[in-house]
């Protein structure tokens, strides 16, 4: 067989029916993740047709988007933002019972943001096809799985048939050579990449991230990178599995055990791009030139190094974005006054993200007038962080330590910023109004977010890390 990319291998091995000129292919889905926002209409569709869920064992649900991040009151009542939010959660709780699906619900020690909790329980494994009614499903590509977001109609298709009608996307290799400098994180890398190729730069493609800087990333960092593939318009992002992947997965609840584990690892080792395989397109990035980076506009492609001047608007629309953000071309983002800092989301709310932020916050105070929310990505992250005392570091600094969920990433649950407020956020989208009507979002790494909380202005974390090293 001719040389194939990792993506080719994943695609080929899941073809139930090959595509033709007149019909798309039928692609088999190994794992279907479900959450409360994009599933109710799909379950209704099944109900109205008298259909059942074809593979309950391949379907896993969680509660994350509409859920409050404040604890229940003395009567156990959770402070839902609206009756609709509460009804939506109740609807999923009912649907999983009616259809016999596993739910990581309120009573589960595994509940969390779908893209944090799925990998944690070992549901996400190399070589799988994984879908969810959520565009950041690309996160799971960090394990060498083909993972992508789908709409609610397709959620229904997968529930009923475990398959999707798909045409094969093109492939794009993003090769990152060199090494990231101290204080520069996986978040800065992916922001830099999106700034470079643009938010439509990946449209029609599945991205494979390769190169020594990518190999050097931890699993959590790889998830951060793959997570934002959609922000470049790509269907999915992939990283070939290696020892880093296997070590992270071994022993997790849903992965194979014993001899089956060894067989699985042997098979997973074949999931690499063959020498000589061709991508439809390639981009090269030098990791050593990347600075801590932030967004300055109203989409994730408007990225600038934190101390570099904000570029002049190329057209009236970019000018509108600058006006909305109240930033001035020619001035750096560092120094902009900050109202809210959010550390959370499926991009950056894993244990290593919280540790990185805590490293800067320890023994310091959130600046007067700044509100800071720290929202762990899952119950497991929360437990691990609390056992290390990270919650106390954040609380001592004056930040709010919340219960796991999407929270201010999508601002559906009542955690939101007020009109005009500037939010330094470790999430993935800075669209107008994403974090509350009129809110101005600056996307950044957990290090930048923590440094900005202390400084009360957008701040370069290296200032604080160096102080530490000097002390």
């Amino acid at each position: 067989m001719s040389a194939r990319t990792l993506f080719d291998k994943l695609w080929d091995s899941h073809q139930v029916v090959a595509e033709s000129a007149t019909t798309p292919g039928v692609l088999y889905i190994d794992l279907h993740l479900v959450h409360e926002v994009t599933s109710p209409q799909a379950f209704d569709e099944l109900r109205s047709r008298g259909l059942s869920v074809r593979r309950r064992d391949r379907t896993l649900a969680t509660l994350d988007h509409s859920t409050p991040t404040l604890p229940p009151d003395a009567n156990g009542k959770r402070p839902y933002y609206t009756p609709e939010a509460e009804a939506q959660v109740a609807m999923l709780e009912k649907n999983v019972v009616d259809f016999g699906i596993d739910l990581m619900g309120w009573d589960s020690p595994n509940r969390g943001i779908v893209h944090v909790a799925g990998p944690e329980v070992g549901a996400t494994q190399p070589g799988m096809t994984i879908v969810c009614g959520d565009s950041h499903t690309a996160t799971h590509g960090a394990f060498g799985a083909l993972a992508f977001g789908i709409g609610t109609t397709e959620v229904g298709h997968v529930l009923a048939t475990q398959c999707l009608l798909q045409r094969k996307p093109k492939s794009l290799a993003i090769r990152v050579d060199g090494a990231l400098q101290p204080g520069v994180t996986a978040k800065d890398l992916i922001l830099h990449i999106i700034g470079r190729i643009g938010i439509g730069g990946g449209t029609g493609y599945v991205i494979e991230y390769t190169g020594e800087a990518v190999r050097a990333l931890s699993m959590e960092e790889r998830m951060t990178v793959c997570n934002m593939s959609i922000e470049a318009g790509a269907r999915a992002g992939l990283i070939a599995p290696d020892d880093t992947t296997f070590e992270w997965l071994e022993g997790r609840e849903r992965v194979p055990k014993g001899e089956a584990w060894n067989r699985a690892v042997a098979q997973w080792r074949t999931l690499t791009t063959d020498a000589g395989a061709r991508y439809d397109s390639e981009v090269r990035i030098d990791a050593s030139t990347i600075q801590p980076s932030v967004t300055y506009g109203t989409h994730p492609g408007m990225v600038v190094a934190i101390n570099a001047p904000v570029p002049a608007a190329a057209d009236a629309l970019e000018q509108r974005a600058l006006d909305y953000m109240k930033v001035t071309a020619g001035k750096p983002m560092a120094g902009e006054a900050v109202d809210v800092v959010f550390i959370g989301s499926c991009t950056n709310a894993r244990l290593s993200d919280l540790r990185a932020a805590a490293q800067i916050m320890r023994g310091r105070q959130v600046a007067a007038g700044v509100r800071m929310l720290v929202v762990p990505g899952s119950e497991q992250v929360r437990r691990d962080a609390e056992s290390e005392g990270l919650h106390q570091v954040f609380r001592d600094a004056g930040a709010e330590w919340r219960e796991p969920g999407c929270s201010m990433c999508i601002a559906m649950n009542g955690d939101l910023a007020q009109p005009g407020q500037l939010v330094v956020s470790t999430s993935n989208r800075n669209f107008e109004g994403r974090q509350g009507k009129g809110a101005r979002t600056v996307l950044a790494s957990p290090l930048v977010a923590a440094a900005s909380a202390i400084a009360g202005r957008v701040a370069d974390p290296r200032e604080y890390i160096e102080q530490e090293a000097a002390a």
Partner: protein
Amino acid sequence: MSKTTQPLAYVHSRTAVLANENIDTDRIIPARFLTTTERTGLGKHCFEDWRYAADGSDNPAFVLNQPVSRGCAIIVAGHNFGCGSSREHAPWALLDYGIRAVISSEIADIFRGNALKNGLLAIVVSEPEHRWLIENPGIELRIDVAEGTIRLPDGGNIHFDLDAFARHCLLNGVDQLGFLSQQEEAISAYETRMEQAA
């Protein structure tokens, strides 16, 4: 084959131009309205944060609120329309609002797939054609799904590509879940093959 969608052969309407590039799904339907468990009723929140003034009245500066846009079923939008989330609420909101076709020089993948599955035409045209459509708002277009053409007022045509299967489904109101369900034998055979290999 069961049918759940209305067949769609033509869209005939004046255009409304939303020239902004990168109109994202949070623009089309803000996340705070996603707590619905229905497909319908989202039209009143379509483009909510552009459409209404602070006091809830119509914002007269927003194109779709202007008299010239009344009854328009075709939006000509700036490059990379529909980027962002996978929420199918975006095409649901547009359809509920009365939009039947969106034309741009680029449309985000997931949005386009979602739109076509719901009978909302998502059409990509070339840059020069796109520029021309942006610069000529309010013109009468007739979109022919079978031919893959947009008829201009002067009788000229713009051709657009549409996936053959998507076209077939639109024209015949084919329900894709019905189509997939007919692949049952192949799906079962695949599952058996995989279980034996494991």
